[in-house]
């Protein structure tokens, strides 16, 4: 009898999980496209580097205080597009700076392709292996706190070596977060596709920014 009850429930869970996964990837694709569009607008307007800091401040505030309150309603979709649009707009000002460098377009293209390959490979690894990466939670959170504190220090110190070390640490941490988040979605730990999209978007965004920085510093002779 228990067997009969368990089967439909597990099927329901699988269907719900697949729905969250499908919605997450659809929303993630849309937000990435919108973000790219806003970056193009920002490049066209030749926004100064300060625009990046302003966009990050506003989008972080929205992500911390507005998105969690709206994520269970349709207005959450508007908020996530606002956040990703702002981040894309800020990113455009950084890309404008790189475009002015001798190897700028090559660095941007390589960082873009590299980010795509990292995200797709890690996602494919979790989706095919079905491994549970929830054990990484404590390590990832502790790592993020450490990195954020170091980032605060480096805003004022502006040490290139620390910047490079932080970028490397961010790539490792964000890659771990992609494994953690994707595994949470497929194991039913994350049921809100808006929050799942936000987390995956931030990982992709941070990997791209960090790769740009590493390639910008190390790619120069």
């Amino acid at each position: 009898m228990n067997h009969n009850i368990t089967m439909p429930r597990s099927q329901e869970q699988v269907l719900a999980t697949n729905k969250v996964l499908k919605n997450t990837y659809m929303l993630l694709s849309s937000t990435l496209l919108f973000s790219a569009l806003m970056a193009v607008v920002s490049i066209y307007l030749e926004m100064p580097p300060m625009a990046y800091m302003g966009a990050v401040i506003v989008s972080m505030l929205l992500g911390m205080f507005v998105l969690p309150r709206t994520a269970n309603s349709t207005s959450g979709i508007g908020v996530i597009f606002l956040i990703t649009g702002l981040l894309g707009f800020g990113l455009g000002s950084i890309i404008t700076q790189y475009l002015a460098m001798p190897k700028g377009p090559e660095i941007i293209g390589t960082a873009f392709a590299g980010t795509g390959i990292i995200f797709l490979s890690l996602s494919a690894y979790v989706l095919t292996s079905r491994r549970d990466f929830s054990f990484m939670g404590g390590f990832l959170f502790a790592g993020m706190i450490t990195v954020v504190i170091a980032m605060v220090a480096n805003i004022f110190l502006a040490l290139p070596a620390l910047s490079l070390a932080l970028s490397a640490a961010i790539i490792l941490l964000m890659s771990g977060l992609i494994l953690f988040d994707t595994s949470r979605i497929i194991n039913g730990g994350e049921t809100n596709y808006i929050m799942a999209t936000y987390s995956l978007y931030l990982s992709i965004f941070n990997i791209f920014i960090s790769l740009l920085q590493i390639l910008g510093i190390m790619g120069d002779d």
Partner: protein
Amino acid sequence: MELFLKIGLAAVLLMLVWRLYPAAKEQMKNGPKGSSDDWKGLILPAVLLIGFVFLLIMMVRG
């Protein structure tokens, strides 16, 4: 203006730490603990990732 933005960004980042701390504490205290095999399973993806980033650097350096 830039200094104000830097101070604003630092404040927001510290706010993020303040928001992350309880979740981090909870995860470290009551979150699932990985076995040594779980952690060993991460070595290969991490090495591949680091190798891939080095490959990208070499590509840009030409």
